[in-house]
């Protein structure tokens, strides 16, 4: 019999979205002097709020506030005191978890199940983790008394707005730096709520500054001479521009960029769990994940069986209202991103790959894209090479382990990879050969503050998370 799940929407009443937001500089919200922009709800295309744009003078003010806070307050503060501020922030994020989760889902379009169970708990855990490092830096393997760098200019993407903020701010502050952070223009709201959390935690003014705006604000920030450290998460193209813009300076740089991860399924894999891993690898967060398992490499001898199971599983994915607690796949973050996904999917069809998507009704308003799989994909197809950053999986086959590794590594990216097999020695053999910063064996898309994350090759420089993540914010 049909078992229809009734709508189970999370209440929006826990969030209070103001009609307009300013910049958070030196502990206070202030006006921006650029042309304001609107942030819209991707699931409805409704305008949520008007957001200030920071111009050059605003960025100057923010950097100056961060510099003053670094020199006068945060830099000299004993690590154990910095730690307590970070623990406090972690606790407030936990206390305001529901508010943050709902706001994130509204502004980003991601399912509430994910913002509630993944983004927000991980963000809190990240602050909690790095809080503990603040007074133990001398034990981290970077010398007896490693020093902070100064002011960090940080630019984050729209796919995990609060979580990426946590990945940037927590280690920076733990190491004694102060920050100016620019959230993505389509998802500024949780960063602005975080500014309020900083005030609630009584974090000294200027330690965290949030400047909103589009690409130009980001360019002003990373190019600012008062910035000692640049940290960026986003596309490889912008990462390249940033690397060029810091060339010849003393600025330190970490980049977490794009990916085109191979998820390799051997014929002895635990098939049902592999299917879950594939689904989790590419449809988690609508595929807006730099480490998404966007290329499925399946051993030919098991390809048909696996694809049959995968399609059956995809048919159970629930696409729709991000605030519905039963939604698995939410809205695409922006019209621009949707256009890009459509364009690349069309290229997949044009190049001769076979397209399949389950029958699922998509809402009339908002930005939506059904979970899609392409079979018969060749290495030379655009959908096998370019990052789609959407719920689109390209399936390729291989015959031998060596061929799998060769195809997996045949990309300028090197962020992540997956391996599925019941044979331990084959896992280690494969993992050893994959040129990727994170290898998930018999699992996928797992994140933890204690686990270093970051890419090889054009997927970026440096690691975030764990002891390794401290290095980016210490003068070592």
């Amino acid at each position, binding site marked *: 019999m049909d078992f229809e799940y009734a709508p189970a929407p999370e209440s929006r009443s826990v969030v209070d979205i103001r009609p307009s937001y300013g910049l958070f500089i030196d502990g206070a919200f202030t006006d921006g002097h650029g042309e304001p922009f609107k942030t819209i709800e991707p699931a409805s295309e409704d305008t949520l709020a008007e957001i200030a744009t920071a111009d050059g003078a605003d960025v100057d003010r923010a950097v100056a506030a961060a510099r003053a806070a670094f020199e006068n307050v945060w830099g000299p503060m004993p690590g154990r005191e910095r730690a307590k501020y970070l623990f406090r922030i972690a606790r407030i994020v936990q206390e305001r978890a529901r508010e943050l989760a709902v706001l994130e889902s509204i502004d980003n379009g991601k399912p509430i199940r994910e913002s509630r169970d993944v983004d927000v708990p991980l963000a809190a855990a990240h602050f909690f983790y790095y809080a503990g490092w603040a007074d133990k830096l001398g034990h981290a393997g970077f010398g007896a008394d490693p020093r902070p760098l100064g002011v960090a200019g940080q630019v984050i993407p729209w796919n995990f707005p609060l979580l990426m903020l946590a990945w940037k701010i927590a280690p920076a502050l733990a190491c004694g730096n102060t920050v100016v952070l620019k959230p993505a223009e389509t998802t500024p709201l949780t960063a602005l709520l975080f500014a309020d959390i900083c005030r609630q935690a009584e974090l000294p003014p200027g330690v965290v500054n949030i400047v909103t705006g589009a690409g130009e604000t980001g360019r002003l920030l990373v190019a600012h001479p008062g910035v000692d450290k640049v940290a960026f998460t986003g596309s490889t193209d912008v990462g390249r521009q940033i690397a*060029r813009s810091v060339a010849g300076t003393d600025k330190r740089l970490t980049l977490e960029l794009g990916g085109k991860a191979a998820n390799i399924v051997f014929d002895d894999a635990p098939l049902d769990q592999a299917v879950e891993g594939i689904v989790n690898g590419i449809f988690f967060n609508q595929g807006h994940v730099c480490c998404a398992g966007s290329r499925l490499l399946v051993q030919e001898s098991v390809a048909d069986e696996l694809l049959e199971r995968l399609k059956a599983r995809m048919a159970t994915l629930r696409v729709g209202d991000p605030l519905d607690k039963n939604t698995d796949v939410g809205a695409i973050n922006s019209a621009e991103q949707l256009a890009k996904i459509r364009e690349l999917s069309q290229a997949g069809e044009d190049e001769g790959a076979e397209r399949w998507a389950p029958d699922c009704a998509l809402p009339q308003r908002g930005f939506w894209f059904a979970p899609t799989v392409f079979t018969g994909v060749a290495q030379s197809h655009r959908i096998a090479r370019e990052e789609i950053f959407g719920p689109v999986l390209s399936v390729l086959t291989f015959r031998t382990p060596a061929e799998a590794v060769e195809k997996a590594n045949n990309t300028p990216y090197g962020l992540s990879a997956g391996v599925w097999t019941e044979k331990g020695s084959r896992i280690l053999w494969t993992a050893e050969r994959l040129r990727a910063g994170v290898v*998930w064996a018999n699992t996928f898309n797992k994140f933890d503050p204690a686990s270093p994350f970051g890419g090889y090759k054009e997927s970026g420089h440096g690691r975030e998370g764990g002891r390794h993540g401290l290095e980016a914010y210490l003068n070592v």
Partner: protein
Amino acid sequence: MSERLTVRKTYKLFIGGAFPRSESGRSYVVNDGRGAFLANASQASRKDVRDAVGAARKAFGGWSGRTAHNRGQILYRIAEMLEGRRAQFVDELRATGLGKSAASDEVDAAVDRWVWYAGWTDKIAAVAGSANPVSGPFFNFSTPEPVGVVGVVAPDAPLLGLVSVLAPVVATGGTAVVVASEPAPLPAITLAEVLATSDLPGGVVNLLTGRRDELAPWLASHMDVDAIDLAGVPADGVAALEEAAAGNLKRVLRPAGDDWSGEPGTARLTAFLETKTVWHPVGV
């Protein structure tokens, strides 16, 4: 009675374990410390850079796949071979203008530096890696791996400087394309002769002599070079090379006015390592 005519040495490039002349057929004059003619050195071209990168890439899989212990043995063998050619290196360094004891000290230090890095090959992973206590039923570990092909613009300290930037690259399993000191390239080529007889597989180290300004940009912009050490680049040349290196997001080690005589630490080892983190479920 006539004096015996000495047999002069032809200094060539070192690419893929062989000693070719530059494909361009060019060479340049190398003078000694007082300006007198010393030798002709090959003047490598962009195509030699290309060939050297190809050789380094080809060698990378095998070299990085060696056990750390084996790499340590080979680096130690390099130290032994260098020690055996001590007198020759002292002479070559004196020709660059160093006094007798300074030259002698520099050769000693260079030998010792290979020994230092030979000992690091099978320890750096334990120091730079970790088992990470993630909150879930997973075993999670991080291991350092060599970044790949590293371009090295060597500093002008012709032996110790060169060894100090080259040894850490190969100790961890990376392969190198080195642009040797422009004014004093001869010890680099003699070092190549040491490498060629030390069980180091061909292509792991490739040494080019010539014009730094001409060669470094090709190395910095080469899309199959994973990282670049700008140790020997003058301050005014760094920005352009860094910009070129951004093309494929190379890891860049900026020149830091290093004093090659001190204890090197691990910074040059870790600069050209990637951290790979592997997750696996823990269950029955």
